[in-house]
């Protein structure tokens, strides 16, 4: 991984350790492994860290470490890692009620994509998705692996409120709204699984690097 590493300063206290110019599941999975090692090491001056598609973002306290020392510390961690191919222990199955009032857009997607509703459900729930990262809003997973046949544009006008647990499709992506929020994705179903719990320390059930499968109810 080190041979492709680029150090990019986002601000005077945040660095992006970037590993690729393209989105790649294997590189992203390696970034999650690096992040695990970083979180277990005691890196001086480290405030927080999180993965994106291609980078590990590090927020550091430059009064407790120097930029150079921080970069060296992280590089040392990366050198020692034996990257392993993803195992499937981290698979989360999410029960989804597709269509009807839970998935108000299933019907119009069916028309746009010229697929029957049950075909859409079969394709959407037949894929294993990779959680690249969580962001945009608290607990919102960026999932990779949507079948090309299900790619479809966003709603022309975003909805003011989308209920928590809604499963949507937009362009090449699929995702779940963990909290009630506005949004322009087409909603095909809804899960009753509580994805975020503010009272818990690890407040999001979905974690970066996990695999997700949707199970039709």
């Amino acid at each position: 991984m080190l041979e492709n590493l680029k150090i990019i300063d986002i601000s005077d206290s945040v660095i992006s350790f970037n590993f690729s110019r393209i989105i790649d599941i294997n590189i992203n999975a390696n970034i999650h492994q690096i992040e695990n090692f970083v979180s277990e090491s005691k890196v001086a001056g480290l405030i927080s860290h999180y993965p994106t598609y291609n980078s590990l973002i590090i927020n550091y306290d430059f009064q407790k470490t120097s930029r150079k020392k921080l970069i060296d510390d992280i590089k040392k961690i990366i050198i020692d890692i034996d990257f392993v191919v993803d195992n499937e222990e981290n698979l989360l199955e999410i029960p989804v009620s597709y269509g009807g009032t839970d998935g108000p857009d299933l019907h119009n997607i069916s028309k746009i994509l010229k697929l029957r509703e049950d075909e859409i459900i079969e394709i959407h729930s037949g894929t294993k998705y990779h959680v690249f990262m969580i962001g945009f809003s608290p607990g919102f997973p960026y999932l990779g692996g949507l079948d090309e046949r299900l790619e479809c544009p966003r709603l022309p006008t975003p909805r003011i409120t989308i209920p928590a647990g809604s499963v949507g499709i937009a362009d090449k992506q699929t995702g779940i709204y963990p909290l009630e929020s506005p949004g322009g994705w087409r909603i095909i179903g809804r899960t009753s699984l509580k994805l975020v719990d503010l009272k818990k320390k690890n407040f999001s059930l979905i974690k970066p690097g996990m695999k997700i499968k949707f199970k039709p109810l």
Partner: protein
Amino acid sequence: MKAFRVANSPLYASVQDEGRFGHERFGVSNSGAGDIFSYKIGNLILNNDLNAPCIELIGGNLELEALSDICISITGGDLGPKIDGLPVKMWHTIFMRPFELLTFEVPANGFRSYVCVQGGVKTNYIMGSYSTHSKSGIGGKTLNNNEEIFVNKTDLKSINKKAINFPVLPSSEPATINVTKGPEYDLFDDKNIDLFFNSNFNVTNRMDRIGVVLEGPSISTIDGSHDIISDGTTKGVVQVPTDGNLYVLMNDCQTIGGYPRICSISSADFSTFSQLKPSSIVKFNLVSIKESQDRLKKQFNHFLNNNILDYSSESVLNLSFGDRQFNLIVQPSGDKFEVVIDGKPVKLEF
């Protein structure tokens, strides 16, 4: 202990502390006080924990009725604070009696005021912080009409400190804000970079705790594309969306964004930036990462060395007798002292 009742519907006031760190991997950004220096000085004046939660008021229009004997400080932008109609001094310890009304009107200088209370505001502690995340409602509290604000009970200490040096508010127009290069700096050609650093930008009223939109000459990337593979963002990042305006991310911003990041505001200048009100003019100046970090270290040392506080040589009291309100100041006069009531010196005989 009850400290205040919110007596109107404020524009936007919320509870904030230093911020929430370590939960970005779940999409939870840092939140926290925008003008971190003024906030910390407010706590310093009261002998509070430096990270004690406070009320951050954006843009004025707040009425707080005291419900107990409390000791507070007001720092940051001058939003015209008054107690029972009489102006009160900012950057000072202020004692309030039950049923006194603290009011803020419109911004005179600056845009965010910090009301710190001795003992610290008591609210929802979530994921290591009392800060309110405005978008999701995680933690803290947004102030609404008729709600009560609680503080940790404390024995009011008779302290009389004031801040003497607070280099936070912009001293002139345009405000010059130092920035470091952002990850997509090179997506802009020399002409656009020149425009960025040699133009004045206007702070618009499209602002909240997530971001501030600046208008000026339209800035564009070399190939006209303003989409990047979504990557990390943090407060102070200056994004350039397709409309060519600048979108400066504030404390409650998203952790991941897809617009080019041209620059990022220096940590040492973020407090000043957060105090700019709509229609303020701002200019950017490029510094290196090292210069940017050194400037904050210098500010911080100044802070730690306590060159910031002094014991006030005067006392201000707001008194009432029947329906009448008095503002009483005791101030030094040579080796004696004099008493001033509502601006008029009073002759004292012992």
